[in-house]
């Protein structure tokens, strides 16, 4: 990895962590987007690692408090987002069109949904100390439906509006084509 790419990766990690630790409205987050974009630009492994690192630190320093048993699930969820960014880069031609905006919107919604389901499983593990796991899982999924819906809408808009311009800008910064 050359210096330019390393610097950009460091900046992305710093921005991602800074935004994640800032007090903000519930379900409004940029970590998924930045992990996804990092996955697109630097490959699935680095996208996943950036997301995992940010979520790990967030688990301890979040303004909402210690994540506890949900932390490993948050990490797994965000790793999936970073990996998906790398996979999406492989099927993208980088000749941007309106289709890419729609695709990133769908991906943003889908990955957020998967992330929320995974973290809700973590919540179910926590709840399972006082009820059967199947009941805890249904409770976690149903009670998390509204925050999840808000999260999905937010990330769908964010992914659709930001992914393509951001990756495009990073392409220009790095001069050469990404993922080469």
């Amino acid at each position: 990895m050359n210096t330019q790419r390393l610097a950009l990766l460091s900046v992305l990690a710093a921005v991602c962590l800074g935004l994640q630790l800032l007090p903000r409205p519930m379900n409004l987050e940029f970590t998924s987007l930045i992990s996804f974009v990092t996955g697109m630009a630097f490959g699935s492994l680095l996208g996943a690692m950036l997301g995992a690192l940010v979520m790990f630190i967030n688990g301890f320093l979040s303004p909402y408090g210690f994540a506890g048993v949900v932390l490993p699930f948050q990490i797994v969820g965000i790793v999936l987002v970073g990996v998906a960014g790398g996979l999406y880069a492989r099927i993208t031609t980088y000749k941007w069109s309106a289709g890419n905006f729609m695709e990133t919107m769908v991906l943003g919604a889908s990955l957020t949904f998967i992330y929320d389901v995974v973290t809700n499983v973590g919540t179910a593990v926590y709840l399972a100390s006082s009820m059967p796991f199947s009941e805890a899982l249904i409770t976690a999924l149903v009670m998390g439906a509204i925050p999840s819906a808000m999260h999905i809408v937010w990330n769908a808009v964010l992914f659709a509006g930001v992914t393509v311009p951001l990756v495009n800008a990073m392409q220009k910064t790095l001069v050469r084509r990404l993922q080469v």
Partner: protein
Amino acid sequence: MSIQRRTFLFAILGLAVWSTAASLTAAYYYTQYVETRRTFEELKSLVINANVQMNYGNETQNWHNETVIAGSTAFDALLTVTTNVEYQTTAYGVFVTSVDGVKNVAETPTSGRAWLWYYWNATTLKWADLLKASDAYVLRPNAAIAWRYESYSYSF
């Protein structure tokens, strides 16, 4: 991957997320409905009906059928009819001084016009005065309360 196949796959993915998230949202609201319904059924036994007569002393008299929480007082019943109430809290309880802008007037030290309240005595079938503050009288189911702006006079 052809464009059509790719578009189809993303459309399926988007629809799958939308339908699942919408189903979960519907399940959430259903559980809220069930919970609210259960709470309502529990609370239903905790509310009572109260009939409140308002007499402004100027031929204006009307009835209000109100639903109040069990344990509410005659004063609470007044507040369900109108929130435009002024009162003083004394050692004996609440003393209403004005309702809907109609204020108590002391014409002499022992007489004047004031807001007084009565309850309907179902045994004697008469309006009765308990000689105590309205917030000290706990309403019974289907209680009838009268708030009247009328003349008073005391003699010692």
